[in-house]
C-alpha cells in the first residue's frame, strides 16, 4: 500500500538571538510517522506543553518548513509545494481544525462566509451548489445551514462553533484532517459529542485524522494509534489501547499517572513527583 502521509525523521530547530547570544531550540527531533492510504485511522499525538506537538502539526499543514527530514503527502514532498495552484490542491486534501474556535473565526464576519468561501475556492462550487455543499457538510456534523446562516461566531456556543469549524474543513472532502487540541476549549459536557464526531468521520467519510491532545482519556477512547512526544522526540508509539493501557516509557507512565479520574473519588490524593 502506498502511504497517505509519510513523515520521515523530520526535525525543526528554532534559532533566536544574535550571533553572540544565540539560543537554539530543538522543537521537533527526528519524528517519523506513516499513515497508509485507503485505511482511514485516527492517530493521536500526545505530549505536554512545549513537547513540539503543534510544531509538528504546522509542518504537516505546510505552514512551516522542516529544517531537516521530509514529510511526503501522497508521494509529494510537502515543503516543495510553492505555487498557488499546488498549494490549493494540497489544502483541498489536508485540512486543519484549531484549538479555539472563537479565535479561528473573525468575530466581525458572518460564519457562513467561511463555509461559502471554502466551497467556492476548494470544492469549485458555483451558484446554488455553494449552499448545497455547505448544508451537506453542516449536516455531517449535526448542524444545518438554516441554523448557521447569517450568524456571527459569538451567537453560537463553543461546541456548535467547533462543529462549524469541522464542517468547514469537510467541505473540500479532504483525505486528512489535522486537529490541534480540538476539544481542550470545549467543556466536558460537549466534549464527547465532538469526539464522537471524529469517530464517525473516520468510519463514514473515510477521513484520516491526526488528533493532537494532552487528554489521554479521549485519546484512548477514539484513536487507533498513538505517538507520545517529550521535548520534541517521539518516546513511545503503537496501538492506542496497548500503549495507554500499559505504557513502557517512564514519561508515558508519568502522563498516565497524572490523569485525574472521577473514579478516584474517596481515595487519598497524592502527587508522586514533588
Amino acid at each position, binding site marked *: 500500500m502506498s502511504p497517505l502521509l509519510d513523515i520521515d525523521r523530520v526535525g525543526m530547530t528554532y534559532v533566536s538571538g544574535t550571533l553572540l547570544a544565540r539560543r537554539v531550540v530543538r522543537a521537533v527531533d527526528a519524528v517519523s510517522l506513516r499513515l497508509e492510504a485507503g485505511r482511514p485511522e485516527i492517530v493521536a499525538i500526545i505530549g*505536554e*506543553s512545549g513537547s513540539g506537538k503543534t510544531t509538528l502539526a504546522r509542518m504537516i499543514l505546510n505552514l512551516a518548513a522542516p529544517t531537516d527530514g521530509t514529510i511526503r503527502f501522497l508521494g509529494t514532498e510537502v515543503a516543495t509545494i510553492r505555487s498557488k495552484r499546488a498549494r490549493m490542491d494540497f489544502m483541498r486534501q489536508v485540512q486543519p481544525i484549531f484549538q479555539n474556535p472563537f479565535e479561528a473565526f473573525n468575530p466581525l464576519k458572518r460564519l457562513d462566509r467561511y463555509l461559502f468561501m471554502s466551497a467556492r475556492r476548494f470544492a469549485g462550487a458555483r451558484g446554488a451548489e455553494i449552499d448545497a455543499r455547505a448544508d451537506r457538510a453542516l449536516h455531517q456534523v449535526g448542524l444545518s445551514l438554516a441554523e448557521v446562516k447569517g450568524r456571527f461566531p459569538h451567537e453560537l*456556543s*463553543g*461546541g*456548535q462553533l467547533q462543529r462549524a469549524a469541522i464542517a468547514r474543513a469537510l467541505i473540500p472532502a479532504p483525505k486528512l484532517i489535522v486537529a490541534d487540541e480540538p476539544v481542550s476549549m470545549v*467543556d*466536558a*459536557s*460537549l*466534549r*464527547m*459529542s*465532538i*469526539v*464522537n464526531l471524529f469517530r464517525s468521520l473516520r468510519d463514514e467519510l473515510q477521513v484520516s485524522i491526526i488528533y493532537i491532545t*494532552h*487528554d*489521554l*482519556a*479521549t485519546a*484512548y*477512547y477514539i484513536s487507533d494509534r498513538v505517538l507520545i512526544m517529550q521535548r520534541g522526540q517521539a518516546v513511545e508509539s503503537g496501538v492506542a*489501547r496497548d500503549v*495507554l*493501557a500499559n505504557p513502557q516509557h517512564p514519561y508515558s507512565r*508519568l*502522563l*498516565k499517572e*497524572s*490523569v*485525574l*479520574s*472521577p*473514579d*478516584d*473519588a*474517596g*481515595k*487519598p*490524593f*497524592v*502527587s508522586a*513527583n*514533588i
Partner: protein
Amino acid sequence: MSVAPAQAEAAERVLEVANLRAYYRTSYFGVSREVRAVDGVSLHVDRNEIYGLAGESSCGKSTLVKTIVRAIRPPLTIIEGSVRFDLGGRACDLYALDQARLAGLRWRHLSYILQGSMNVLNPVRRVRQSFVDFAFRHVGKPMPQFLRQVENHLARLRLEPAVLDSYPHELSGGMRQRVTIALASVCRPDFIVADEPTTALDVVVQKDVLALLCEVQRQIRSSMILVTHDIGVHANVTDRMGIMYAGRLVEEGRTVEVIRKPRHPYTAHLVTSLPRIGDAEPRKGLEGAPPNLANPPSGCRFHPRCPLAMALCRQQPPPMVDVAAGHRVACWAAAPPGPAVVS
C-alpha cells in the same frame, strides 16, 4: 483529602451564602437587558474544607465566586441575598463593609486566585515587587523580615528564592501558577477562592499544582472554594461539591457521594460521559446548547436537555431538597413533590 476533616471536629461555618441573586444589568438606548448569571444560590463552607463548584462554561460559576469575594463591577449587580464570612474569628457581612475595611480584609483573611492567574502578575515588575504590592501591608513586619517570610513560604511551594528576582515572562506556566498560589497564601488567609487555577496547565503540571494547593491549605488550615469544570479534579481534591447549571445550584453533597451516586440527571451525565483509560464503550455528549441566561427556560432550566423531563418540569422550578444527610438536589424526578417536600 476526602477523608473530610470537617467531620472529625465540630463543623464550623466560615462562609454562609443565602439566596444570592446577581444579574448583569445593562441598559443602552432604552433597551435594557438582564442576564441572570446567579439566580438564588445558597451554600455554606466549613472551616478547613475544600468546596468544589462544577458546571459547564457560562453556567455562572465565575460570577458566583466574584460575588462571594465582592469583586463585582457595574453591569453585575446584586439583586438580593447575603454573603456572610467568619474571618479571623469575627463575623462580617462583606457587602456592609466600607472600602478601607474591605482592603484590610483582602489577602490577609480572604484571597482570590483568578481564572488565568498566570497573566495576573505585572509583566514589568519583578515577582518580589508583586509580593510587596500585595502582601507587605498585611504582614505588619519590617521589610527584611517580610522578605524572609516570603522566601520561606516559596520554599514550601518548592520555588527557589531566585524566583523573586525574575520577571513573570522568565518563568514557566507552572511556576507562575505556583507564584500566584504563594501570593494568595503568604498571609495565611482564612479563606481562599480559586477560580480554575489549573485549567491552562497540562496534566503533569496540573497534578503538581493541585497537590501543592492542597498541602498549603492543610498547613494553614484555611477553607477553600475551588472552581473547575473538570470532574476528575473535584474527585481528587474537594471534600464537598456543588454542581451549577444555568445560574442555579442543582446538586450539592459530599464529593464521593455526588460522583458515585449522582441524583440529578445533569450530574449523572457529567460523570458518566467522561471516557476513562481502559474502557472504550461508546459515550454520548449532551444534546442541545446551554440556555441563554437572558431568557432562561421556564420551570427547571435543564428540562429542554433532560432525558427525564416531565410536564411538571416545564412549569415549576424544583426546590433544593435533602435526599440524604448533607446531599441536596433540585430535581422533580429525583425528589418528587409530596408532603415531605412541603415541610
